[in-house]
């Protein structure tokens, strides 16, 4: 009798719980993975999510935030093994890989019926459609390099004009450089996506770069064997040898920002998301931002890096996922998010009306986006399978060149062969 009583009680408790969880499961749970994790940014996203959940009580969004160094790999693993995922943040570099393995949803139909699409920058739509001319992700922010400089340090050494060309920049950096006082000029990026920095400087020596592929000229030839490219590369090497600390061959993102904040190097190419960091650590009066300098060709070529939001093709809540994405990417939320994060927003209306994004510091990026006669937007060949390992190959070759282990001719031949 006692045993029967106990069993009955247990079964009723079990039934009670299953009924309770059954009704609780009426809520739709969306899994959202971010790949640009940083503590402040994650807090921002969580706030936006909780606001959204208040407006939509039947939706619960579960934010997955792996550490920055491993986030891309984690997202790749999750997608490839079909783990439950409804919203995924994708970096432009990863897009081709995900589309090839058919893991991302075609978002064109959603885009057509979205009112927010009307106020998007032309950049935004172009960037969304970079693979197969189809929107597989919607950009949520842009990274665009600008020239940051330390106002206080330059004043101290008597430099009043911000360099507008690379020759001027080199001369100023050389003048300031004083190794015995640990004072150098240029924040040299030696590792981890360092090719972007060298490309920006070297390509300004040419004026006929193909806007669809920074490594080609308008006549279809690769740039590496052009004598002007050689001149640019030589100047780039001089920046390392004569205006930067030897250690900078190993400087990645953290180290160059560190060098700028500590004052070791008063000139730095970086993205606008550092504005928030610099405001906090230096204060608005100690630094400024200028457009990227132009080269002897009178032009500056630059690329835009994009992070966007997408929906896995196997998601079971595609409609709900899109509704959140449309909310997150609306002009108001996008501007709120990026005001606190610093990267560039995706709607043209934000630049025209938002008080933060029309301030002095952002004017340099506005200048770059509004003066295509000097500042030309170019694309990297992200569609090519060769682009995948290019960062690592370029880094190894450039480091060998800087260390004098190979000659310039050998490197240029190698790169030409690589892209052939």
């Amino acid at each position, binding site marked *: 009798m006692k045993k029967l009583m106990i069993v009955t009680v247990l079964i009723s408790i079990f039934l009670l719980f299953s009924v309770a969880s059954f009704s609780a499961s009426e809520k739709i749970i969306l899994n959202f993975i971010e790949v640009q994790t940083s503590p402040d940014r994650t807090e921002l996203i969580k706030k936006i999510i909780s606001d959204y959940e208040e407006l939509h009580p039947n939706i619960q969004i579960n934010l997955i935030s792996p550490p920055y160094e491993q986030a891309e790999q984690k997202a790749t693993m999750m997608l490839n093994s079909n783990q439950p995922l409804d919203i995924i943040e994708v970096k432009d570099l990863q897009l081709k890989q995900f589309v090839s393995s058919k893991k991302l949803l075609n978002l064109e139909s959603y885009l057509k019926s979205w009112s927010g699409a009307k106020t998007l920058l032309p950049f935004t739509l172009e960037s969304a459609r970079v693979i197969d001319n189809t929107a597989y992700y919607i950009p949520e922010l842009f990274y665009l390099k600008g020239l940051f400089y330390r106002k206080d340090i330059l004043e101290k050494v008597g430099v009043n004009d911000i360099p507008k060309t690379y020759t001027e920049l080199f001369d100023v950096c050389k003048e300031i450089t004083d190794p015995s006082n640990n004072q150098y000029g240029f924040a040299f990026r030696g590792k981890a996506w360092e090719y972007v920095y060298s490309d920006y400087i070297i390509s300004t020596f040419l004026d006929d770069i193909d806007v669809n592929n920074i490594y080609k000229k308008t006549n279809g030839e690769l740039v590496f064997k052009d004598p002007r490219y050689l001149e640019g590369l030589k100047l780039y090497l001089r920046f390392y040898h004569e205006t930067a*600390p030897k250690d900078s061959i190993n400087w990645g993102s953290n180290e160059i920002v560190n060098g700028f904040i500590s004052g070791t190097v008063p000139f730095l190419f970086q993205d606008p998301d550092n504005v928030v960091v610099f405001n906090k650590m230096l204060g608005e009066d100690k630094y400024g931002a200028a457009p990227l300098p132009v080269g002897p060709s009178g032009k500056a070529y630059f690329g835009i890096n994009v992070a966007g939001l997408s929906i896995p093709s196997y998601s079971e809540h595609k409609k709900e996922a899109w509704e959140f994405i449309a909310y997150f990417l609306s002009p108001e939320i996008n501007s709120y998010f990026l005001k606190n994060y610093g990267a560039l927003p995706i709607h043209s209306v934000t630049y025209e009306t938002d008080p933060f994004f029309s301030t002095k510091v952002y004017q340099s990026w506005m200048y770059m986006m509004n003066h295509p006669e000097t500042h030309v937007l170019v694309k990297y060949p992200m569609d090519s399978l060769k682009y995948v390992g290019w960062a*690592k190959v370029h880094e*190894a070759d450039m480091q060998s060149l800087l260390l004098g282990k190979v000659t310039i001719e050998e490197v240029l031949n190698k790169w030409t062969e690589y892209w052939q």
Partner: protein
Amino acid sequence: MRNKNSKFFLIMLIPTFISVILLTYIPISKGLIMAFQNYNLYDLSNIHFIGFKNFQEVFSDTSFNFLQILLNTFLWVIGSLFFQFVLGFVLALLMTKPFKGRGLYSGLVFYPWALSAFAIGLIWAWMFNGQFGIINDILKKIGLIHQNIGFLSDPKYALLSVIIANIWCGIPFFAIMLLAALQSVPSEIYEAAEIDGAGYFKRLFHITIPYIKPTIINTTLLRTIWIMNSPEIIYAMTSGGPANSTNILATQMISKIYNFYDYGQSSAIGVMIMGILIVYTIIYLKITSLKEFSL
């Protein structure tokens, strides 16, 4: 009666066999197959056999010279193993006799073993930092150097720096294992040797080491395999750079996946590592079982 027992034992072993096959042998076979395929995550639609092409590409890579990778691997393993063993052994010898605070001291000495190798790499990377590193600071203060050394950015010093971090990381393993072995040597033998007039070093080389020989062989073999296979410290400190100067087989294998998404070439390197270690193990065990080395 006997038949029933052995059948029972066999059945009890089946779960173990199944898990070993599933978790070890099937992945190994998959890896072996991938080494001969063009398995690239960017183009999964066209996977087929390509013979030895992966191996050829690894051998002839112009940005990551294979001979240098082999040399780095050799120096990394030998350099780390030798000092880990010697320093670990010295530590174990010093701790055999009880002293005040031995328990606490043991805890501190064995602490590195509890840390993740990646975290150890990050800490040492900051210590070796060329601008703000504490090692540069100390060396300048005691007058050994006058200008900062870029330990991790100068190919001359990079490999040495990662090896030093690895030595610190691996000493506890030898200290623990050798201490346990030392404590199993019967003390009567030492007493007899002392009576016969044997000094410290005679006792060490003629009694202690022969007695703990099996432990020494096992630990050095295991540790060699682990050191050869561990990319975490190097990955955290230099990711194989600058210019391939700290790249070993294991870090190149990881780089092929994380930077190139090329599972085919990565598996080829994995096959090479496995081949080297199998050959090494066979030779090592043969040599150490020779008469000259036995008790």
